[in-house]
C-alpha cells in the first residue's frame, strides 16, 4: 500500500529529526582480508564408516521426551488431560501450536468415532501414524538432472550448509559420481578454507574465488569447470543469510538465476535447517522458498536433544519435502529422511 510506504518513510525521518540528528556513517559489508596459512589441516577422513541409524543416534537424547510420554503411558484411560500432555510433548518438540492442534484434533475425532481405542498405547500409535501420514506422497529423491546438475545449499547463518555439502559430496563420491564444490560463500571469513578441507576429505574438486568476490560468478565458474570436465554434480555453498535481509535475499535470487544458465541446471535448492530452530524455521522456509524455490530441506544436528519438530510444520504448511538428515560432524553422518523413523524418534 503506497500510503503506508509514504507514511513510514516520513515517520522515520520525523522521528530521527525529533531526536536530534543522525551521525553520518555509510553502511558497509566488511570484506574478509586474505587469509595467511593457518595450522595444518587435520588428517583427511576416509568416509568409509557406516552411516548411523537415526534411532541409535537420538536414543540417549530422547530421554526427557520419553519421560513426559512415560507419564501418559501409565495412565489408565485417555481423557482431556492426556491430550494436554500430548500437546505439551509436541510443543516441546517445536512442532508449533497450529500443526499440533491439527494433529490432535484429528486424533480426538478418531477416538470419538471409535477408530482409535481410548488407551494410551493406541493413542500414541495413532499419533505416530498421523505424523508419518503427514509426510506421505513426498518426492524425497535428489535430482541429478543436468550436465552438470547444480545443487544449491541455502539457509541462515550457522545451520550447517558447508558441513552438509561435505557429507553429500562424500555420499555422491561413494556412489561413483564426480563432484565439483563451488565455494559460493565469499563473505564468511575462511569459508573457502573450510570447504577446501571438505574437498580434500572427499576427493572432490573445488572452485574458489577471491574473498569478497561475487558469489554468482564463483558458482558460474564452477559450473563451467564442471561442464568442461564432464562432472556430474556441482554442490554450491552460499553464505548464511537471515531471510529478513532484503539485499541478501536479492543476491541469492541472482545466484540462482546465474546458476541456472546453461550449461548449469539447478535441479535442487536445499534449505539447511538446524534441528534446534524454533518456530522461526517456518518463516525461513517460507521466505527462502519464495525467493529461490526450495526443493527440499536438510535437517541438521538431529543428534542433539532437539527434536526437529519444526519440519512437521514446514511440511504441513508449505508442503516442502524433507530430504536429508544430518546426525553428526563426520562425513558419513548423513541419512535419508525416513518418516517412520523420525516419528518413532519424535514420540519415543
Amino acid at each position: 500500500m503506497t500510503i503506508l510506504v509514504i507514511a513510514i518513510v516520513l515517520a522515520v525521518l520525523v522521528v530521527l529529526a525529533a531526536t536530534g540528528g543522525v551521525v553520518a556513517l555509510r553502511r558497509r559489508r566488511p570484506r574478509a582480508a586474505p587469509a595467511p596459512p593457518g595450522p595444518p589441516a587435520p588428517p583427511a577422513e576416509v568416509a568409509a564408516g557406516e552411516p548411523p541409524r537415526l534411532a541409535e543416534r537420538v536414543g540417549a537424547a530422547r530421554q526427557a521426551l520419553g519421560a513426559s510420554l512415560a507419564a501418559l503411558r501409565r495412565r489408565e484411560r485417555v481423557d482431556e488431560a492426556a491430550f494436554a500432555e500430548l500437546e505439551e510433548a509436541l510443543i516441546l518438540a517445536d512442532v508449533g501450536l497450529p500443526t499440533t492442534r491439527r494433529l490432535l484434533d484429528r486424533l480426538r475425532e478418531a477416538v470419538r468415532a471409535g477408530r482409535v481405542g481410548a488407551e494410551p498405547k493406541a493413542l500414541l500409535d495413532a499419533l505416530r501414524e498421523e505424523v508419518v501420514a503427514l509426510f506421505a506422497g513426498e518426492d524425497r529423491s535428489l535430482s541429478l538432472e543436468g550436465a552438470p546438475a547444480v545443487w544449491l545449499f541455502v539457509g541462515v547463518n550457522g545451520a550447517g550448509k558447508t558441513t552438509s555439502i561435505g557429507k553429500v559430496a562424500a555420499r555422491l563420491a561413494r556412489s561413483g559420481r564426480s563432484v565439483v564444490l563451488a565455494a559460493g560463500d565469499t563473505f564468511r571469513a575462511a569459508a573457502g578454507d573450510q570447504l577446501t578441507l571438505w574437498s580434500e576429505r572427499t576427493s572432490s574438486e573445488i572452485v574458489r574465488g577471491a574473498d569478497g568476490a561475487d558469489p554468482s560468478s564463483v558458482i558460474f565458474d564452477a559450473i563451467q569447470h564442471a561442464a568442461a570436465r564432464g562432472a556430474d554434480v556441482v554442490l554450491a555453498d552460499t553464505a548464511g543469510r537471515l531471510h529478513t535481509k532484503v539485499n541478501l535475499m536479492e543476491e541469492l535470487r541472482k545466484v540462482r538465476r546465474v546458476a541456472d544458465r546453461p550449461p548449469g541446471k539447478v535441479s535442487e535448492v536445499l534449505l539447511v535447517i538446524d534441528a534446534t530452530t524454533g518456530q522461526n524455521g517456518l518463516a525461513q522456509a517460507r521466505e527462502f522458498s519464495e525467493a529461490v524455490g526450495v526443493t527440499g530441506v536438510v535437517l541438521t544436528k538431529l543428534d542433539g536433544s532437539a527434536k526437529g519438530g519444526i519440519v512437521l510444520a514446514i511440511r504441513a504448511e508449505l508442503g516442502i519435502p524433507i530430504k536429508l538428515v544430518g546426525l553428526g560432524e563426520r562425513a558419513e553422518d548423513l541419512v535419508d529422511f525416513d518418516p517412520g523413523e523420525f516419528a518413532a524418534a519424535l514420540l519415543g
Partner: protein
Amino acid sequence: MFETLADRFDQIFTRLRGRGRLAAADVDEALREIRVALLEADVHLDVVRDLVAAIRERCTGAELSKSLSPAQQVVKVVNEELTAVLGGEAFRLTFASRPPTVILLAGLQGSGKTTAAAKLARYLRQQGRHPLLVGADLQRPAAVEQLRVLGRDAGAAVFSEPSDPVTVARRGVAEAERVGRDVVVIDTAGRLAVDEALMDEVRRVAEAVRPHYRFLVLDAMAGQDALRTAIAFHESLDLDGVILTKLDGDARGGAALSVKKVLGRPIAFVSTGEKVADFEQFHPDRMASRILGMGDVLTLIERAERAYDAQVTARAMERLQAGRFTLDDFHEQLQQMKRLGPLKSVIGMLPGLPKELKDAPIDDRDVTRVEAIIRSMTPEERDDPTIINGSRRARIAAGSGTTATDVNNLLRQFKEMQRLMRSSGLAGLARGGRRGAKRKKGGRTSASLKGAGR
C-alpha cells in the same frame, strides 16, 4: 525480533480496551491468548506457565478493580512482568584486579561463538582494554583460520596451536600474561549438550584456566530445546551469562525470555548483525517494549546512525518543513530507509503509529513498486508532478510495470502527505496524523489518518 508477539498483544489489548470493566472471564480470555502468543514466540512451556500465572495474580486482584482503565493496567502488568523476566537491569562486566580477565565462550554448533568472540574483543578494545583471542576450536575445519581473519577485523591478536583445547587455552592465558594483554577471550568448539565426552572436555578447559566469565552463546532463533541446552551447559560450567546472537532476524526470541528466568543468569550481550561492530549490551526494557509494540526508538536511531547519511537527512528535513519536499527527496529517503531492514521491522520500531497502519498488509514489494514509478519519471516530472498528464502517466506506468491508477495513487497520496506535513507540522505525523487531513477515498487508510492515534 519480537514483531509477531507485539502484533498479538496489540490484538489482545485492543479487544480489552473495547470493554469498560474487566470480568474474570475477560482476563481469562486475554491470558489464554497471551499463552498462545508466548508459545508461538518459542518461550519455554515452563516459563509461559509461570509468566501467565504471575500476570493472572496481579490482574484479578484489587489492583485491577480499582483501576479506571483495566486494559491499560493489564498492559502495564504484562510489560513489567516481561521486563522482570528479561532481566531487570543491564549486565555489567567487571575486570579482574590481577589481569588477565579470562572469558570463556561455549555453546552448540553454529550458535555464533567464533564471530561473538571477535565482536567481544572489539567491544573490549573500545572500552580501552587489550584483548587476546584464543582459538581453542580445533574441531571445526578452518575455525582457527576464521578467528584469525575476524581477529584482524576486530583489531585483536589471535593465539592458537594444533595441540588440544585444554593445552591451547592454558598456553593462551600464559601468552596473554607474557605480552601484557589484560583480557583473554577463548573460543571453543561447538558441542552438543548431550555429548558427555565433549561436555567433559569444556569442563576441563574451564578448570585449567579458571575463567572469570563463562558465557553461553545462544542463537536467538532457538526453539524449546534451548532451555535444556542452557541448563546442561550451566551444570557443567556454572555459567555467568548468555550472549544472544542473530538478533537481527525476525526470530521471536523466546529463548531470551526463558533463559534468564530458569537459569537465573542474565543475558549479557547481544549480537545484532553481521559486522564485527554489531555487538552491544543487552537492554531488557527495550526488548519488553518491542514485544508490546511500544516501538523501539533507540534501536531505530542506532540503525539509522549506521545507515543514514547525515547531510542528506538534514537537507530532507529542511525541505520537508519548508514544503519543498519533492519526489526526488522522497526517493532518496526511501533508499535510506530500505537499509534499516524489512518494512515490517521498521514499522515495529516506530512509536505511536495508529494500529490500522501497523496492521495494514505489509509488503516490501510495495516499496519496490513506488521506487519503480518514481524512477520512470523524468526529472521535470519529479520536480513538478502537476505536469503529468494522461500520456505521461501511461508512459510512467508502462515503464514501471504498474498501472495508471497506481501512478495516480502515488501522486495523490504524496501530495496529501506533503500538505499534512506543512499544515500540521512534523509532530503531527509522529503522533499518527491526528490533525487529520480530509481524505476522499482509501477505506482503511483514510480511517487511519483521521485521528486514529490515542
